[in-house]
């Protein structure tokens, strides 16, 4: 049985992700773009996924052959479908998005992150999810700090660890990394890129409690870094993940 990690992406982000994979010389990673859905062999029964199949590089495989799926796409866009007649592109894009949402939801292997009704790669692109999560753990958000000066820090979290952060010694815990880790946990998102305003800039502002303030949050794949992709792949194939996937 072939065990592979599948990375799903669209035209907009395909190139930087492929460059990361190439630099990492990541074998056993296959890339699926929306055009790859226009192939004979896809089968999905949403009520009984046991016989579902996936088509990777024109090979028809059972979905049980997948070690994990990394979704770097929120919805299929008409411009992803150059092979489809332009008049049909918007409709086909919606249908493919619907298919991927149901297919991803039915997989028993690890999927980062699981789809929501509004996005295939989970909630990371939904500001309301981040700001609601920030409110639950007492982190102030940028909406109430329209003109706040101060140093901004960007951190990327994957699977409970900070894997990329400007001027952060990886592994070190400070207020920003702590806030980032708490925030992704509260939001129920396993991978994201977060921007914070550091505590001195927010000190004394009502509701900020001296904690870093959340400026913005976005899916990790909007601006992929090698370290992020490496962490995603490592999380996919870790024995702990594999056992956690059993029974999902």
């Amino acid at each position, binding site marked *: 049985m072939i065990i592979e990690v599948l990375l799903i992406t669209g035209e907009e982000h395909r190139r930087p992700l492929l460059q990361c994979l190439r630099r990492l010389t990541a074998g056993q990673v296959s890339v699926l773009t929306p055009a790859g859905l226009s192939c004979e062999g896809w089968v999905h029964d949403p009520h009984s996924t046991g016989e579902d199949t996936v088509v990777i590089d024109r090979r028809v495989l059972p979905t049980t052959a997948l070690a994990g799926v990394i979704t770097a796409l929120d919805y299929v866009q008409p411009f992803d479908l150059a092979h*489809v007649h332009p008049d049909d592109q918007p409709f086909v894009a919606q249908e493919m*998005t619907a298919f991927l949402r149901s*297919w991803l939801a039915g997989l028993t292997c690890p999927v980062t992150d699981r789809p929501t009704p509004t996005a295939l790669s989970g909630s990371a692109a939904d500001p309301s999810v981040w*700001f609601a999560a920030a409110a639950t753990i007492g982190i102030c958000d940028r909406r109430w700090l329209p003109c706040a000066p101060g140093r901004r820090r960007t951190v990327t979290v994957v699977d409970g660890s900070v894997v990329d952060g400007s001027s952060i010694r990886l592994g070190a815990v400070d207020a920003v990394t702590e806030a980032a880790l708490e925030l992704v946990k509260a939001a129920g998102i396993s991978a994201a890129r977060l921007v914070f305003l550091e505590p001195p800039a927010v000190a004394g502002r009502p509701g900020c409690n001296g904690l870093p303030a959340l400026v913005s949050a976005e899916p990790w794949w909007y601006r992929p870094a090698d370290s992020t992709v490496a962490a995603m792949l490592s999380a996919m194939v870790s024995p702990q993940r594999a056992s956690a996937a059993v029974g999902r």
Partner: protein
Amino acid sequence: MILLWGSPADGPLATVRDSLIGSGADILTLDQPDLMSSRLVDAQEDATLLTRAGAYPLSAITACYPRPSIGVTEPSTNPSHPSAVRHLVNIESRLWEWASTTPATVMNRPSPGATNSTKMSQTRLAQLCGLDVPATLVTTDVERLREFADRWQQVICKGAGGARTVVYRVDIERTDRMPHLTTCPTYFQAYIEGVNHRVHLVGEQIFTVAITSENTDYRYGGCEMTPAELPPDIAQKCRLVCDRLGLSLAGIDLIRTADGHWYFLEANTSPAFTFFIGHERVADAIADVLTKA
């Protein structure tokens, strides 16, 4: 204040608006032209919507019925001015963001509202709630489709996403169409012979209409409607589906077979209820939920 977000020319929004006006409710109707000339200003832990008509703190909105036009449809929004389109997209995004988290009653919030953009996810949930669903296959594989059609005799094809599509019965012998199957995984279901029912759930209230038609898709080509009642267990399961989807308003499509079996087809999260008889009662019920928020 109750926010009606959409065009006053939209049937469902207009009937809810009439009902609210009749009851003397304080309403604010916002359409694309209003939003084009509006802006949202952030203030300490609140935002205020500034329109030509006045300033409205979002915290003063107690309920919202969103039925915004999809995409940029307003002619005054000249697509040759990208900044105008950007402004509209931006302000609509901010309003959806507000609608996701506000303590106000929203019928429906964006995430639950998006659930009918994947009909298979709804049928999977309905099945978990104890409702029967038609056998389903989503495929690009002609042979698998033939096997499915052989097994279920009659098969229908419909859109899996949010776009409105005409449901039709599949003629598996139409070999000219089969090569197109590889364009995109396509949604097929076993055809269920029976009487269609549209069930509108509004808060705790249920309104049911039975629909008979000669056509596979009753919306096209004529149909007859009569008021109907659901068996209590089916009504309960429909409520459960709405609860699990997070919907306070839904138009659920069911089919009852001649031997009394009920099948769930889909849940419309922004139902065009004015197509059905008795729609005034549905509008009044929506207005009632919005008013009591």
